[in-house]
């Protein structure tokens, strides 16, 4: 079995689903089922009498086989994120937390310093910490050192659908990491999810690309297939790529003829 280890948990699905931006709860739940995801992100919101159907805890629990990963979105500092994580754990009973701290509400780029501080605290408190970060190889190593179970670099800006713009940095992060690397944000198509998996990502986290698709439920199924295909390709071992570097005159003639 090719399982994804995260903290003391293992998952057979390598597609993690975000639950935001869906037109309605029912479509979201159908998409979760169609995706085969076992780890699903949720956000803390204030209860509002007028939007009762917002409460996703009950409906998601009914699907079965789902582990919740609350995020700390809305937090713009480490202290706020830590507080959100505590409240979320109270509510979910899940040790997972996606540390997501974006001080700027327009571009939603993660704050590396606050993310590091919050992750350090939460890891020491026993959370399974999954920080959402820019594709920064040094930050990824620093987060690994303080006990994060994974690092989740972005492929491109949240919701932008620009795909794996950061692939060079992602390559470096994957190459140097000893924890699973999960691409979070920016993916648009199942093909991009497959490409991320082929690079050696341990999983991908997808939300907008499914929620905003023409048929979200069908797209969830397509992403599931893309992730499986990419993972199988990675474990099978891709054919080596040629460098296409060609010298104008022989470089190794000084060696003489091979005996």
């Amino acid at each position: 079995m090719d399982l994804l280890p995260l903290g003391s948990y293992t998952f057979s699905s390598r597609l993690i689903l975000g639950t935001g931006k869906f037109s309605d709860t029912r479509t979201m739940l159908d998409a979760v089922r169609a995706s085969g995801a076992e780890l699903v992100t949720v956000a803390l919101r204030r209860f509002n009498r007028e939007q009762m159907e917002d409460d996703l805890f009950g409906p998601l629990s009914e699907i079965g086989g789902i582990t919740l990963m609350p995020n700390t979105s809305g937090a713009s500092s480490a202290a706020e994120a830590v507080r959100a994580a505590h409240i979320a754990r109270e509510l979910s009973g899940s040790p997972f937390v996606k540390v997501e701290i974006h001080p700027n509400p327009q571009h939603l780029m993660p704050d590396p310093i606050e993310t590091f501080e919050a992750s350090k605290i939460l890891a020491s408190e026993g959370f399974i910490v999954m920080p959402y970060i820019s594709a920064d190889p040094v930050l990824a190593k620093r987060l690994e050192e303080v006990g994060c179970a994974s690092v989740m670099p972005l492929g491109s800006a949240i919701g932008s659908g620009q795909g794996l713009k950061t692939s060079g940095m992602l390559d470096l992060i994957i190459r140097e990491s000893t924890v699973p690397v999960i691409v979070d944000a920016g993916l648009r198509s199942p093909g991009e999810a497959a490409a991320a998996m082929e690079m050696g990502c341990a999983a991908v986290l997808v939300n907008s690309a499914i929620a905003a698709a023409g048929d979200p439920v069908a797209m969830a199924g397509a992403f599931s297939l893309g992730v499986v295909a990419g993972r199988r390709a990675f474990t099978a071992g891709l054919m080596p790529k040629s460098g296409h570097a060609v010298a104008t005159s022989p470089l190794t003639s000084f060696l003489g003829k091979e005996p």
Partner: protein
Amino acid sequence: MIALPEWLSCTKESAGLASMLSSGPAYDLESLAAESRAITLRRFGRTMTLYAPLYLSNHCPSGCAYCGFASDRSSKRRRLEADEIERELLSMKKLGVTDVLLLTGERTGVAGFDYLRKSVETASKHMQRVSVEAFPMSVEEYRALAGCGCTGVTIYQETYDLRRYEELHRWGPKKDFFHRLETPARALEGGIKTVGLGVLLGLADPLEDALMLYRHVRHLQRTCWRAGFSVSFPRMRPQAGGYTPPFSVGDHLLARMIFAFRIALPDTDLVLSTRESPAFRDGMAGLGITRMSIASRTTVGGYGDDADNAEQGQFEVFDDRTAGEFCNALRARNIEPVFKNWEPAYNGPSSVNPVRELQPEQRECR
């Protein structure tokens, strides 16, 4: 027998390198050379960093079958005293050398840690960069060396073939394979900035050794990610003591190894010593090698004017050109010889390089 750690035995890690090392149709030598050259040029530019070894002492309690300084060899034993070291360093400086590698045998009462530490202190007064290739030490000892200005530690596993290792290291402290294996990590934990790894090509199956060496480097790069690394490719040369290695590594295979390592480790220094011929060294400059030794003496105290050139060294030097001649040869190939990478002000111990035990969920072999 204790099993090798997973990071060292995991063949998946080195699958890419393995396919480049096997001389199939997928990778002809010329294409590897072209790619290796392109990567080297991009990452290192047209430069070659240079250093010279200084043998401090050839006292040694170990019985390494392949070494000219093994304790059963008849070599005259001596160690350099502080004033001699100073004189040697000044002679080296006159040759233009400002990056020195201090060598000793395994730890002895005559040439032990205190002797080495004092020698490092002396050397860092005169040299821009000081590194050591001596005996395995403790984290605290490495910390003390780093505090005296030592920035690099070279420690070759010699061979990663556990059984061959047992046979070749007939007696002495070097017999402990695993203690030696963990030495680079200890050095880095102690604040040493760069470690040099290598195998002595010819002692065991060279391809297997190369793959294990690669996995060792990759493991260290992941776990001690702030550190610098270099990899050497010493081939067995005729030694005092007349050991004949069971495997021979020809120029083509060595070149292939160097190209493949450059492609697999694009940011790592690759080192070639004066064991190699002038033609091979000149040819490899710019194709993948980024660091070379020059004007080397492999006898204890070989640089002074009164050096006894008839004395047997640890190995026979092949490229015996002077520093000036060699630098000119590099310049003729449009490569700038470099003796200094950093201002010595930066030669203090490295900031924390914590060495962590990997947690169960942290597995390198994915």
